[in-house]
């Protein structure tokens, strides 16, 4: 879980920063927020918690491919037009983590509650610690 990425494609960002024609690029593809996460280990595996305010269960997209965990969240929040005090905007969320081979990729589960995403990454059976009885003679 060491390596991580916080933007989907560096080239896209560079293009928009260089002042090239980005009129075709949508907000979804150019600007992202990186959600803060908690990652901890349990006996069964790894738990990832991520703050994704404004994201519902249907709008979250979790992918695991080649030991790469991708968290994407689409937010539909936009502030009311007649703002008198303006402190935040929400963009879509993106963050990637490299997983070790000890995670059972088939049994990963996730849910969103109160704007917090919980991803459960169970350990593969063969990695789980096994008690080995020592026979003392």
């Amino acid at each position, binding site marked *: *879980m060491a390596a991580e990425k*916080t933007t989907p494609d560096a080239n896209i960002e560079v293009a928009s920063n260089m002042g090239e024609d980005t009129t075709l690029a949508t907000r979804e593809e150019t600007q992202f*927020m*990186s959600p*803060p*996460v*908690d*990652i*901890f*280990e*349990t006996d069964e595996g*790894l738990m990832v*918690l*991520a*703050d*994704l*305010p*404004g*994201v*519902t269960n249907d709008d979250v997209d979790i992918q695991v491919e080649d030991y790469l965990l991708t968290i994407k969240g689409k937010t539909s*929040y936009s*502030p*009311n*037009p*007649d*703002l*008198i*005090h*303006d*402190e*935040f*905007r*929400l963009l879509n969320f993106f963050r990637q983590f490299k997983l070790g081979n000890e995670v059972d990729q088939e049994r990963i589960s996730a849910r*969103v509650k*109160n*704007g*917090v995403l919980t991803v459960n990454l169970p350990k593969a059976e063969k990695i789980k610690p096994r008690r080995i009885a020592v026979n003392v003679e």
Partner: protein
Amino acid sequence: MSPMTMSVFDELNRMRREMDRLQVVERSPRWGFPFSRVSFLPGRAARSYPLMNISEDADNIRVEALAPGIDPESLDISIAGDQLTVTGEKLALSEAIAPEMIHRNERASGRFLRSVTLPTEVDSKKIEASYKDGLLKVTLPKAEAAKPRKIKVNIS
């Protein structure tokens, strides 16, 4: 005083105004201001929590606060005159998790309190609040006395 010294003071005044302006920007982070990765967290962010967007139309004031992962039981909203106060608690990771088991802990936690002054008096009996997807939305109907009134101009 020669014109030369005058312009030096003008320049100083201009710089002071510029600094004041920068400080205002710092105090009210806006869209376009580089938002930090942890800007909506309590504790670790050296700014008000939760962040709030406030909008106003003829009848209502609407407050939206960015507060993911709050224990809904702990959320408490109170109003006194034109002062709206929101308190609550963002739960920390369970104490049962041994520190050596935690790989990352970026989501800060703890109790919070924020008070804001609303632009008008509101009808405290009709306030509605909802908490969904980590967003707290409060609708505060304006007090009758504070609503805008049309005044007819008699043309003689």
